[in-house]
């Protein structure tokens, strides 16, 4: 098997399987992905996907709550889970000779999680505590308001953790129904990278999953966000001395041809970023346009951009923390000037070439960890497909200066912007 070969198959019940053998060290990284997240939550049930994720750690008849924490740690492994807008994923990183434990426990909890009412109530207060911890951060409070203002219709409106009103009222049967509706083979992908034999693992997965019914096609909330026609502004006040500014522009989904041009634009404006979540590290952004214009001029003390790969059109965010000697309007004027500069004239080719070299380095760093490789096998399928990842650098290389100028003109307009300011009281 060559270094980049991915074994890709689907069981008759619709379960997708993606395997990548990497024999550098004796470890494996195993992920089960479900196409469900805050995007699938109606008002009244916000936060339910995240809470379901918590409940998946609360036991099955075979593994009562808490027992797997011990079994996995004793095996020298790590496990955890993540809930995002479009997906929820569960992973185990294990010594290679312990792979069967990971395969077995995930197959078990796809079908057999208990949702014991007492555990549901104990977890309610844990989730409340998790949300209260986030509320301690002014930047979370501002981001929550910003998302709610930017999306009036689409369920990207609310935070993944959910609104407190819903965390207080969601019931055990709501959680269980959500679990049974979305945790089905046809709505899942298994991705594994590491030191294993694909044929052996495939045979094992077939044995574990073949009898689980495909499940029904899960229902989806289809509520596209109408175009934004005019800037929206949020003013939030709170304690402290520091002013935070966050802006968000509606941009297309990751599968849209303009998304890569937006990644290049983000690299020029606010510094190189990768979508890696598990390994690699980053590159500083001190030569980016916004850092030079805002931080080097002492108008802000930092700046960063965020672009998420999502199924539906989401947001390109630019955020900064204001220098105490300046007002928010001054910083916003500088941002507008920099955006206008990009809209008025395309970047020089060498500026784009540099962004590409940075992306290549970040891509190389990310490929060095088995966990990040396994992550991408599944993650790319959650918003598009694995080809997106395979061709990522080629597509980035094909972005022209005119493309960057065009996406700046198309998306980074005042009328398409939501702007949030956290002002100290």
């Amino acid at each position, binding site marked *: 098997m060559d270094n980049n070969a991915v074994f890709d198959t689907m069981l008759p019940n619709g379960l997708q399987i993606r395997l990548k053998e990497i024999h550098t060290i*004796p470890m494996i990284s195993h992920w089960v992905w479900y196409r469900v997240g805050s995007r699938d939550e109606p008002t009244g049930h916000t936060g339910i996907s995240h809470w379901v994720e918590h409940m998946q750690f609360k036991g099955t008849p075979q593994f009562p709550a808490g027992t797997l924490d011990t079994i996995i*740690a*004793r095996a*020298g492994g790590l496990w955890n889970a993540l809930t995002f807008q479009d997906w929820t994923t569960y992973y185990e990183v294990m010594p290679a000779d312990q792979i069967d434990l990971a395969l077995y426990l995930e197959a078990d909890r796809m079908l057999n999680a208990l949702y014991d009412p007492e555990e549901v109530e104990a977890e309610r207060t844990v989730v409340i505590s*998790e949300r209260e911890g986030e*509320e301690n951060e002014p930047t979370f409070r501002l981001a929550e308001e910003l998302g709610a203002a930017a999306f009036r219709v689409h369920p990207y409106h609310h935070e993944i953790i959910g609104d407190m009103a819903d965390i207080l009222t969601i019931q055990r049967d709501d959680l269980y129904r959500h679990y049974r509706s979305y945790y089905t083979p046809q709505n899942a992908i298994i991705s594994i990278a590491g030191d294993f034999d694909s044929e052996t693992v495939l045979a094992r997965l077939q044995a574990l999953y073949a009898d689980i019914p495909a499940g029904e096609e899960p229902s989806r909330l289809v509520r596209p966000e109408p175009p934004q026609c005019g800037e929206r502004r949020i003013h939030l006040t709170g304690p*402290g001395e520091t002013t935070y500014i966050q802006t968000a522009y509606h941009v297309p989904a990751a599968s849209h041809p303009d998304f890569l041009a937006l990644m290049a634009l983000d690299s020029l404006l606010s510094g190189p970023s990768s979508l890696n979540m598990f390994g690699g*590290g980053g590159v500083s952004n001190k030569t980016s346009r916004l850092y030079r214009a805002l931080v080097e001029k002492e108008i802000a003390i930092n700046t960063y951009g965020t672009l998420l790969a999502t199924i539906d059109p989401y947001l390109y965010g630019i955020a900064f923390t204001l220098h*105490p000697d300046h007002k928010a309007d001054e910083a916003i004027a500088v941002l507008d000037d920099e955006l206008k500069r990009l809209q008025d004239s395309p970047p020089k080719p060498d500026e784009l070439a540099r962004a590409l070299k*940075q992306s290549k380095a970040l891509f190389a760093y990310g490929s060095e960890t088995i966990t990040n490789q396994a992550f991408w096998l599944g993650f790319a399928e959650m918003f598009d497909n694995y080809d997106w990842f395979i061709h990522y650098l080629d597509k980035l290389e094909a972005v022209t200066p005119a493309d960057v100028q065009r996406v700046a003109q198309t998306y980074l307009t005042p009328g398409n912007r939501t702007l949030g300011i956290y002002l100290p009281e």
Partner: protein
Amino acid sequence: MLPSPENILRAELPNGIIVLAHENPNCQSVNVNGYLQAGALSEPDEKLGLADFTASMLMRGTQQRNFQQIYDELESVGASFAFGSSTHTTAFGGKALAEDLGVLLNILADALRFPIFPVEQVERKRGQLLTHLAIRAQDTGSLAAMAFDKIVYADHPYSRPADGYPETVNAITRNDLAAFQRIHYGPRGMVISVVGALQPDRMVEMVQSELGGWQNPEQPLPISLLSFKPLTQTTTQRVSIPGKSQVDLLMGAAGPERRHPDYLAVSLGNHILGQFGMSGRIGEIVREQEGLAYYAFSSLSGGVGPGPWYIGAGVAPENVERVIELIQNEVVRFTTEAVSDEELEDTVSYFTGVLPLSMETNEGMASAILNMERYQLGLDFYLRYTDILQAVTPEKILAAVPHFLQPDRMGIAMAGTLEA
């Protein structure tokens, strides 16, 4: 692959710098990490934050390059590099594609030896540091940690925050920064690890060529730590700030230094107390059984000196007293009853099993190699590791723990929106 004398090339340069080189053939990159013997211990009280401020100025202008030139060289090739300072040392670290190791080492040497502290950059950085301190003043986790250090390390240098206070950062002049670098930065006691896709002898040659010529006759001997007085009774400090949903709570004491003979016994015990699986016994009672917190855990620092050993939790204000009581009960049990054989076996099994996973990346390997050097554990430490762990017994843990942690002699610090 575990780090060992077989796969680490250790070289001492004539000027005292220790180089530790390790080849990782499974990557395209290289990491440079290390530290030198200059830290917050050398700061006067009225200039707290001086070591940290100095470290953060090193890449803001040198005799050869200005700020933008330094970062342009790094960022153009997708490399990163940064300095930071803590109580005992100033640390550095960076990453690049293997072909760009020369860029990292050249910037490291230039920044350490020839920084010029441009006035404009000093003031810009000061503004950023002051804003970070303003943010810290609203951060419940930071405030609880500072209050904890004040209680547990009263009259000891560990009670001082390494990032200082607004008034001490404002008192630092450009000349203070330049003098701190000139006096305290030097090759003696400096350690540098290079891990990545190059031959180890080539790595050592490159470090030698960049830093082999560095001398500092003024460099003082490392400061020896004052002894500190353990608490004689439980002492509580409450920091109230408005507008917070959650209280950060820390309870504990000073733990053993890394080189203490009981360190590994205490470390295994701490893992059972507040880390194993879903945060050990503390996580089990506070989160799993009572549902009172999203995070509840314990943490042992080790380090050059007696770093903190605490139990932490983020809890709603109305639950603080209940959580303190639960944690106190666990500490009583932990300090009076031996852990079970099964708990210890599970934890030893975790420590040994997870070891190869933690060394997958250059960063993880560099961290392990630097720890062996810093604490003089021997480069064969991880070859002996399983045997060392297996020699720890429940009785040894119980004998060691009460020297450091006692339920009636804890520091309790909390920060959040508290009732008066």
